[in-house]
């Protein structure tokens, strides 16, 4: 039972995080080998754009926008934040210069770990409400409609609410630090 919990729940969680770190190291090494470290300097921009795009899901969830399937947007949110974080990590490199970008980076990493935790909790919530599917079917909900109802059930479960109460402020801290870092770059960078 314990082994099953580790292999089914903990391992994928760890694997995703470790993959992010390993992918960063590989990409950084490749750029160094090809003498293209300057690419890393500019990767921050697409990285931030991807992360910003990932917020479509958050906006959909808060009903700020009405287009897109929530489930698809959530998947997109996960993929875009992972890819954006990879670019930002390569962009950061291993060079410790200034405090502000490092705080923004730490906030991003905490955010990612929090996001992965949410992913795990959502998965667990879904299991709890699988039985509800039958209930929805009884009520005559089928296909897309049933799927959507099930999804919202899962994301509004109590544990998810509690997790979101933590994830949201972490995201805000990241947004504030990231925005300030971007502003400082615009202000002081050598534009040529």
């Amino acid at each position, binding site marked *: 039972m314990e082994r099953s919990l580790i292999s089914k729940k903990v391992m994928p969680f760890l694997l995703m995080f470790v993959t992010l770190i390993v992918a960063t190291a590989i990409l950084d090494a490749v750029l160094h080998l090809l003498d293209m470290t300057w690419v890393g300097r500019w990767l921050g921009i697409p990285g931030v754009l991807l992360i910003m795009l990932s917020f479509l899901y958050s906006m959909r969830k808060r009903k700020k926008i009405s287009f897109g399937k929530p489930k698809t947007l959530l998947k997109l949110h996960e993929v875009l934040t992972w890819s954006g974080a990879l670019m930002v990590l390569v962009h950061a490199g291993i*060079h410790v210069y200034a405090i502000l970008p490092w705080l923004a980076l730490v906030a991003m990493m905490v955010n990612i770990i929090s996001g992965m935790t949410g992913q795990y909790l959502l998965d667990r919530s879904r299991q709890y409400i699988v039985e509800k599917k039958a209930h929805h079917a009884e009520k005559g909900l089928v296909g897309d409609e049933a799927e959507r109802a099930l999804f919202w059930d899962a994301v509004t479960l109590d544990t998810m609410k509690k997790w979101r109460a933590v994830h949201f402020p972490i995201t805000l801290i990241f947004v504030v630090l990231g925005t300030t870092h971007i502003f400082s770059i615009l202000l002081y960078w050598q534009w040529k």
Partner: protein
Amino acid sequence: MKNRIVNIIVLANLLVLILLVIFVPHLMIEPGKLMDPHMDLTDDCFACHTPFIGSRSSKCIACHKVEDIGLITTKGVAIAKEKKNMAFHQELLEDDCVACHSDHKGVQSFRPIGQFSHQLIARDTQELCDSCHSNPGDTLHQKIKGNCAECHSTESWTPATLKHDEYFRFDRDHDAACDTCHIKDDYSSYTCYGCHEHSRANIRGEHREEGIRDYENCVECHRSGDEDEAKYIWRNKLRGTRDQAGDQRYYRYEHDDDDDD
């Protein structure tokens, strides 16, 4: 109401951080300490940075007059001897200080903003490599004066672009250390007698068998370990010599054996 409070807190934090970035940037975003002579500018980032533009050369030149660089310090003290052989900065085609200089030690140590481009130097001056670069002083370079571009490019000093294949191609049997052929690392000459396989007696014997007397400059025909290739080059050489400059050499090939032995 709750959302409004959160928004206000977020905006307040953002504002405070932005103000910190503007007023104490050296504590927030300084990418490494400044060079010692500029330490007194540490808390005055805008002395060099123009907001939303960056470090313009005009700001550097306001203190470092181009015509004075290397001759007089910014405090008016005469510099006894410029380190370079020529008035380097005065000869540059463009004033692009940050192409070479980055004042923050962190940036300079790991990620220079830009790289010096030889294109900034006038074409005539570009050929005067030793005005800035010192001779490495090894046996090869001691004997060479100028003509650096033969092996080196302005992109990077190493690797030197000497194409050894144009003289001799290495193969399995000739995977030798440089000083096997270039004695004492003197690359201006070579010898093939450094290897036991190529003893003077062996080489003399084999060439005489073919009627060849002029064999001291081995790579003239032996461009690799391929003997057939050497024979081919030798025969072509003979034909070329006979066609273009009479048959003197060819004659030697044909008759020297009879005369000498």
